[in-house]
């Protein structure tokens, strides 16, 4: 079983002290140079676009030169990453300079805050960067949701006009769907992935860091659509509406594609890290469930997201260089876009859901004080969901007229997904059996996850049935369904992870009273916001409308007020987060949850190189209640005994 070992030294290298003297901060690459690069890049790209395509015919509602805008975005991104110093090592290698010292890869950075504003290669820094980034993106998307609900207080338009309404809907949907795909994989996957498998570093730290630094660019570009009046297509970007739209559509395609590249980079890094950088003794059967979920999600990202990047690229060249991939009367097909988009779009749904399964599995075992029930079933459930997610995309197109005689097949595959998803519930329920349940805040969020995701899943069964779906398709029923799985599943799992892991990441714990208030308000108002939406959908309210039948006003007002209160609940979290991190700073350095998991055996926050020596994994992470259970790992194995004294037969040193 040579794959269980890794070709890494047990001894830290003795390369000697750092030899390169650090430049003053304003000369070394960082956010400020990145911004300068982005601005220069944008204006250069814009000039180039006007030079090349100034006389191109424009898409019908666009009053600007789309070529200039797209090339502006492109060169702005190139300038941004170049300014951040992404290419420095690459060009250094080309020029024959030695690579910077190994220490950069494993976090031997200066202790200051500056490293968070640079292209830092330590996965723990990237994880923290992701955490703050994701909170910012989530709050932005949430504000757009508040605007939507404000408009829907009344059955006709009263506050924001139809154009602004669609802009808000599109920004909310796209922001949430594209940025939140990394909401757990980013902060917790990057931070704890290597820690959980006993590695000192990730496989491709440069790709990982680049993956993060593309997200602020995608965020800003997506928001820049507001300057052009937004985009009218929602988060799906259907053609030929996208072709007809104003220039905001360029921002949509570009930002979504850019975020897609970020997801691919993160996925590659995660796959290679998990396969190759596991510590000796970290067999596949000892892999924590969270790592399994990251592994599956990474495969989904690497296999599904390129289709999105392709679709976005084709959408962009249709709009700029007058190709006709999606124009029916010129030989293209609007069905092609629908197919490409949903071939990505359905795995994307599981890119959003699976990390939640992973976090919850970790949390449930710790707070039930029991081993995970049916470890293999849990892993099989994740892999099964991941594989099946590639075979269901046509259920988004049941009424579209594409290949209608295949609908029974897609009905079957869609319903099949409920089997591996059911495994996750079996694992959870089995772990609860005769447990010693402790209702800490992470556990409360985990319980809410089970409740919310269950409602989401059961409503999905209604959508998978073609005749029933005929009424529900494209209505608020669908909207409620995926908010239950994504907001009720993913975001609840994200908060569970924050309360669970933030003490490990920062050494500071969040205020518990405020945390409990946050949980209860969020749980109650989440349900009172989204449960009535099922009824609204069944009563005939389509998605993305600003006008609805007058008899639905009471219910809509109820939903809107609940949504505002839900927003208030997120605000409580924000207050708790800011106050706890900046002012109260209540230290938490031990292992407050008495978790067996590897990351909790380290000092808090984890040392720069994670492990002084590569640990030897001795037992699985979930052996709670086992008398004389081995510790999960020997963190300081004597040199030379790896593979003979500790590790199982065959797991020799590399």
């Amino acid at each position, binding site marked *: 079983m040579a794959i269980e070992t890794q070709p890494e030294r047990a001894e830290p290298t003795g390369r000697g002290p750092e030899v390169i003297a650090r430049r003053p901060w304003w000369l070394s690459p960082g956010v400020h140079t990145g911004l300068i690069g982005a601005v220069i890049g944008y204006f250069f790209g814009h000039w180039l676009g006007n030079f090349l395509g100034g006389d191109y015919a424009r898409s*019908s*509602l666009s009053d600007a030169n789309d070529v200039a805008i797209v090339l502006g975005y492109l060169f702005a991104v190139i300038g941004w990453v170049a300014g951040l110093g992404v290419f420095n090592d690459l060009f250094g290698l080309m020029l024959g300079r030695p690579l910077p010292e190994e220490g950069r890869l494993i976090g031997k950075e200066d202790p200051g805050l500056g490293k968070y504003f640079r292209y830092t290669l330590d996965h723990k820094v990237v994880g923290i960067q992701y955490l703050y980034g994701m909170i910012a993106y989530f709050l932005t998307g949430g504000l757009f949701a508040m605007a939507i609900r404000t408009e829907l207080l009344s059955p006709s338009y009263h506050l924001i006009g*139809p*154009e602004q309404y669609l802009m808000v809907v599109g920004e909310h949907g796209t922001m949430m769907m594209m940025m939140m795909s990394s909401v757990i994989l980013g902060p917790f996957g990057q931070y704890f992935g290597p820690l959980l498998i006993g590695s000192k570093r990730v496989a491709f730290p440069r790709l990982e860091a680049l993956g993060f630094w593309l997200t602020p660019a995608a965020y800003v570009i997506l928001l820049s659509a507001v300057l052009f009046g937004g985009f*009218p297509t929602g988060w*799906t970007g259907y053609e030929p*509406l996208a072709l*007809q739209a104003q220039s905001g559509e360029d921002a949509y395609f570009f930002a979504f594609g850019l975020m897609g590249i970020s997801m691919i980079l993160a996925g590659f890094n995660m796959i290679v890290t998990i396969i190759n950088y596991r510590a000796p003794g970290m067999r596949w059967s000892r892999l924590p469930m969270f790592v399994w979920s990251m592994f599956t999600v990474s495969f989904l990202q690497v296999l599904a997201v390129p289709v999105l990047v392709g679709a976005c690229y084709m959408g962009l060249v249709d709009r700029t260089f007058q190709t006709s991939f999606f124009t*029916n009367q010129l030989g293209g097909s609007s069905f092609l876009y*629908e197919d490409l988009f949903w071939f990505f779009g359905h795995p994307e749904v599981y890119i959003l859901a699976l990390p939640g399964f992973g976090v919850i599995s970790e949390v449930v075992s710790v707070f039930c*004080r*029991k081993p*995970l029930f*049916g*470890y293999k*079933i849990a892993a099989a459930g994740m892999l099964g969901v991941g594989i099946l997610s590639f075979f269901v995309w046509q259920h988004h*197109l*049941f*009424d579209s*007229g594409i290949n*209608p*005689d295949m609908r*029974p097949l897609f*009905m*079957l595959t869609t*319903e099949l997904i409920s089997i591996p998803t*059911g*495994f996750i*519930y*079996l694992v959870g*329920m*089995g772990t*609860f*059996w*005769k*447990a*010693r*349940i*402790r209702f800490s805040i992470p556990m409360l969020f985990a319980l809410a996850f*089970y*409740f919310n995701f269950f409602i989401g899943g*059961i409503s999905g*069964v209604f959508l*998978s*049935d*073609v*005749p*029933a*779906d*005929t009424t529900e398709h*494209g209505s608020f029923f669908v909207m409620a369904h995926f908010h239950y799985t994504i907001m009720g599943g993913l975001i609840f799992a994200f908060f569970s992870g924050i309360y669970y892991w933030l003490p490990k990441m920062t050494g500071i714990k969040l205020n518990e009273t405020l945390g409990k208030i946050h949980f209860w308000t969020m749980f109650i108002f989440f349900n009172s916001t989204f449960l009535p939406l099922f009824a609204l959908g*069944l009563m*005939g309210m*389509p998605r*993305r409308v600003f006008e*609805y*039948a007058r008899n639905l006003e009471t219910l809509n007002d109820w939903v809107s007020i609940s949504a505002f209160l839900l927003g208030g609940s997120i605000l409580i979290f924000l207050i708790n987060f800011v106050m706890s991190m900046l002012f109260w700073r209540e230290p938490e350095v031990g292992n407050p949850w008495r978790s067996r998991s590897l990351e909790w055996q380290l000092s808090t926050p984890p040392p720069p190189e994670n492990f002084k020596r590569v640990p030897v994994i001795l037992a699985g992470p979930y052996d*709670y*209640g*086992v008398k004389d259970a081995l510790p999960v790992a020997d963190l300081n194995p004597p040199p030379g005994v790896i593979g003979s004294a500790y590790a199982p037969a065959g797991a020799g040193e590399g």
Partner: protein
Amino acid sequence: MATTETPAAPGAQREPNHAWRLFAVWFVLALAADLVIWFVWKPHLPPGDMSSSAQHQQFDIAVLAVTGAPVVVAVLLYFVYAIVVWRAKPGDDSDGEPIYGNTKVQATWIIGTSAIVLWLAVFGTIELVGPAGAGAGEGPSPIWTLAGKQTTSWAPGTNDMLQVQVIGQQWTWTYRYPQFGGMESSSLMLPVGMPVAFHVTSLDVIHSFWAYQLGVKADANPGVDNVAYTTPKATGGFTVRCSELCGIWHGAMFNYGQVLSPTAFQSWASGVQAKEQADGVLAALPAYTLTYDPTVIPQLGKNIPAIDGITGAAGYYYGPGNPVTP
């Protein structure tokens, strides 16, 4: 009852006490839920029973609810039970029993969920194929069709299938009746008790034709003829909405239709046809085809604005420069 699988309480074999208690409560609650759903809720479930497809959808939603309710009851009951019974007492720092799995429970669970899934798939397929696509769009050449005679004219009291073309454009619906000289109308009139074939197409972007009370939904794709079938079962009004985002006035893209008695429908349709003939609208309209090329339509329809018409699109067939704002 559709589902008879146990809630698969893990560890059931070793702890008959908990398992039997859970099973008894589950059985009572699940039975009660199913009875309420079937006998109380079903007649009120959307989309109602105004057409054959709506009746099938209502039936399907009810069957799915009856199938799902025992599962919902089982899972929620189990979690509530676990939270109440197995919470750690204050000061109890002990760990639980190390149970790594239970083959019987896992096998029961897998078999149970697989059985439900197979049942759902078989049921859904029968309910899709039997009622001719159950009101959903079936593309240009449907393989599951509704019984009815394909004729060039239509008369009440026969089994003639009424052909209705539904044309979506930003942001209005227009209907054309090829059996009545290709006349067009801005409101959808249908005869009760006779089969109807909708030919849904679009002149610009993708729309979705949703006749809510009729249980019909079919995407309107430019250049594609998307067919959907239904048979109206009761007279009365219904709503047509666009259910695919199609631009800024998507929210306002709705209108109303009426199911009439066959004779009333015939006199309405012949009346409109005669008036459009007299006004010259029929001559000015593009010839009836299953799809229209958006780049050709403006030329074809260029005479229409001159007629103070009764056309739903107010004469503006496809002009992005002249979007119809309601």
